[in-house]
């Protein structure tokens, strides 16, 4: 039995230090527990079953409560806060519809391994199962999209549950944790005992690679001629960007990232191939296709990366480092799986290499070959004389912000272009819905990121379709004075679906036009007017000559600011490897 109590240091017979607090109700216990976890911001929308929690929040001096205008927006704000900082984001909603509105944000955080604690009010426990007003089985409903969940039935459990929830959310492979608290539990009086430690028998998240496996990896590098590093969100969540850069400089191996990994390695570095996959660079995809050694660190071989998985990196030996044992051989069989926190593994590898004290092999022929592909197939776009190419907006923004902004996106063409034409140099600066691909993600995420990083420029690059899905959060921005910026690349269409229609369905439009069909020459909806209604300035930009000035005003604006940039809907995101195809099928024009 391993129930460890550290009684050694204590003198025999001396009483345990008192951690007892005054008597308080469950809602107050919850807030006190959140304060103990260092929570400074919570995104919470009240309702009948969570009202008591809000009453307790009004008394907190440590926690800022931000009122989103929709629970989904609140969920994404919490995720944005977390994605920008690595800290646990916290959101709250009432029972029933308030809770169900959070589900998309939870699923999104689950897919992208984002640490989130989601607190929901529940109908009183004596009403559970009776079809009470605003009752849903939130515990049951969220099971497939959470890392863990709690339904609290005794107020005495709240301190332990909160402590565990934060620990679980942000250790090992991070993810969302749900805490559902019935109203009678929020009311119930108790004298809480706040635990210092978490004891979970079934949860041991620390994983460290052993040196034998790491030595084998180093041996494989020595034997390789065409190695490639394929790195992902794991580098960012484990905080291993520094270790990765050092590893690359010690080993001279070219680096490509996943969409989730963008920013974990500076894209301005000569060994960066930017990102790979369906809309990744030609040279990254080709390098992986021809690699004889693929070092897959903190990645999960997602189908948008691999295409036809049996053909992916077929010629190479694959080494996979991940903290999640279930990722090995899930999508792709690998030759050497190494279970480890990738930060530890990279740090250890760097130490082992330095200890050898000799120059490692470099791969000049391979790097040169990749260089010729870079030169022949750079990311490119067609510029117009008066019309504004959407890619140009992003490239200009990159130049004008010097790559220093935090960029968030919705989902679709603009998201891919943001990844392609903005060069990211730091982790946690490209916040995007990678796994779930949730439209409406960009704007609330930008607000959450701006709350977390008030001194950084935070810009949502969005589409006209995506932006509208959480447009109500303009009120949150205005009222809470969250000065995130927005650039809507407005093509009046669901651009990515249109692109697939053009490529695979003879341009037959299946409900992908977002404008007003009775006035095709006009622009609909009228974003500047919508923004005006919310009290935020929005400029419409129609001509290329006006773009740079407008971008400058956006960047310089002290408060929230938006641009509605009209762009042609005929643009396609390229290159493109169609779903379940291989590098050989890449479309470059």
């Amino acid at each position, binding site marked *: 039995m391993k129930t460890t109590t550290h009684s050694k240091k204590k003198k025999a017979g001396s009483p345990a230090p008192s951690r007892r607090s005054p008597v308080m109700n469950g809602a107050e216990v919850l807030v006190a527990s959140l304060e103990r976890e260092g929570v400074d911001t919570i995104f919470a929308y009240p309702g009948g079953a969570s009202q008591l929690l809000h009453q307790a929040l009004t008394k907190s001096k440590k926690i800022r409560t931000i009122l989103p205008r929709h629970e989904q927006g609140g969920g994404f704000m919490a995720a944005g806060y977390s994605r920008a900082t690595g800290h646990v984001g916290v959101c709250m909603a009432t029972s029933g519809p308030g809770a169900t509105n959070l589900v998309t944000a939870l699923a999104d955080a689950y897919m992208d391994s984002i640490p989130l604690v989601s607190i929901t009010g529940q109908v009183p426990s004596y009403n559970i199962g009776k079809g009470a007003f605003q009752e849903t089985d939130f*515990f049951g409903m969220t099971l497939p999209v959470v890392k863990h*969940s709690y339904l609290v039935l005794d107020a005495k459990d709240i301190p332990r549950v909160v402590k565990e929830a934060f620990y679980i959310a942000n250790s090992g492979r991070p993810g969302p944790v749900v805490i559902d608290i019935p109203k009678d539990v929020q009311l119930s009086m108790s004298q809480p005992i706040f635990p210092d430690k978490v004891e979970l028998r079934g949860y041991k998240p620390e994983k460290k690679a052993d040196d034998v496996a790491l030595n084998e990896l180093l041996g494989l590098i020595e034997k390789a001629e065409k190695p490639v590093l394929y790195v992902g969100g794991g580098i960012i969540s484990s905080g291993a960007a520094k270790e990765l850069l050092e590893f690359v400089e010690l080993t001279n191996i070219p680096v490509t990232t996943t969409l989730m990994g963008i920013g974990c390695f500076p894209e301005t570095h000569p060994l960066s191939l930017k990102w790979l996959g369906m809309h990744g660079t030609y040279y990254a995809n080709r390098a992986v296709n021809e690699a004889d050694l693929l070092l897959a660190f903190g990645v999960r071989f997602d189908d948008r990366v691999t295409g036809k998985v049996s053909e992916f990196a077929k010629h190479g030996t694959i080494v996979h480092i991940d903290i999640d044992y279930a990722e090995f051989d899930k999508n792709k069989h690998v030759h050497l799986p190494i279970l480890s926190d990738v930060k530890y593994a990279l740090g250890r590898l760097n130490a082992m290499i330095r200890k050898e004290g000799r120059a490692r092999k470099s791969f000049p022929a391979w790097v040169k070959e990749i260089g010729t592909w870079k030169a022949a197939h750079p990311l490119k776009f067609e510029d117009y004389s008066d019309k504004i190419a959407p890619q140009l907006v992003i490239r200009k923004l990159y130049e004008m912000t010097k790559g220093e902004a935090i960029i968030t996106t919705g989902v679709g063409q603009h998201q891919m272009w943001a990844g392609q034409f903005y060069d990211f140099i730091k982790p946690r600066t490209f916040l995007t819905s990678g796994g779930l691909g949730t439209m409406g993600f960009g704007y609330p995420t930008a607000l959450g990121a701006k709350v977390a990083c008030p001194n950084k420029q935070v810009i949502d690059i969005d589409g006209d379709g995506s932006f509208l899905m959480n447009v109500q959060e303009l009120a949150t921005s205005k009222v809470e004075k969250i000065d995130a910026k927005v650039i809507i690349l407005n093509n009046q269409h669901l651009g990515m679906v249109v692109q697939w229609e053009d490529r695979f369905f003879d341009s037959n439009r299946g409900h992908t036009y977002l404008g007003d069909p009775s006035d095709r020459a006009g622009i609909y909806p009228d974003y500047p007017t919508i923004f005006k209604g919310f009290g935020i300035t929005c400029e419409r930009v129609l001509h290329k000559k006006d773009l740079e000035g407008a971008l400058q005003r956006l960047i310089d604006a002290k408060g929230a600011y938006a641009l509605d940039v009209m762009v042609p809907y005929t643009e396609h995101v390229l290159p493109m490897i169609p779903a379940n195809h291989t590098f050989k099928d890449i479309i470059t024009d």
Partner: protein
Amino acid sequence: MRHTITVLVENRFGVLTRIAGLFSGRGFNIETLNVGPTHRPDTSRMTIVVVGDDRVLDQVTRQLNKLVDVIEVTDFHEGEYVDRELVLLKIKVDAKARAEVMQICDIFRAKIVDVQPKNLTIELTGNESKISKFIVLMENFGILDLTRTGKVAIARR
């Protein structure tokens, strides 16, 4: 292939749903499932028998391991474990058949736990092959009802 998986879990509500969800979400039908507390009241053991593609089942056991409430998962290989199942059968008998059924019960070390004018209730414990043989024999008399606990298994070592 058929797998016998035992899962040691925290004895808490919701654990069963989490585990069942990992199977159902992938379209697997659980053949038998047995749950009960161990010698520690805070710990339960489940024995799950499931048929499915080996690779996918391997994924499922890894996902099981990730659940916070799961303490240990073992996917048993042949010979590594002993297993038993208990079956209760209600068999239609007349005066003539009764003696024959009782004779077969003797051979199988099955117990007759209830006697009615027109039926017998029999308790049988054993491994899979013994139970299936017994059921085949009883079909000749007429099985009125049958219930089984599902396999329970424990490692030999």
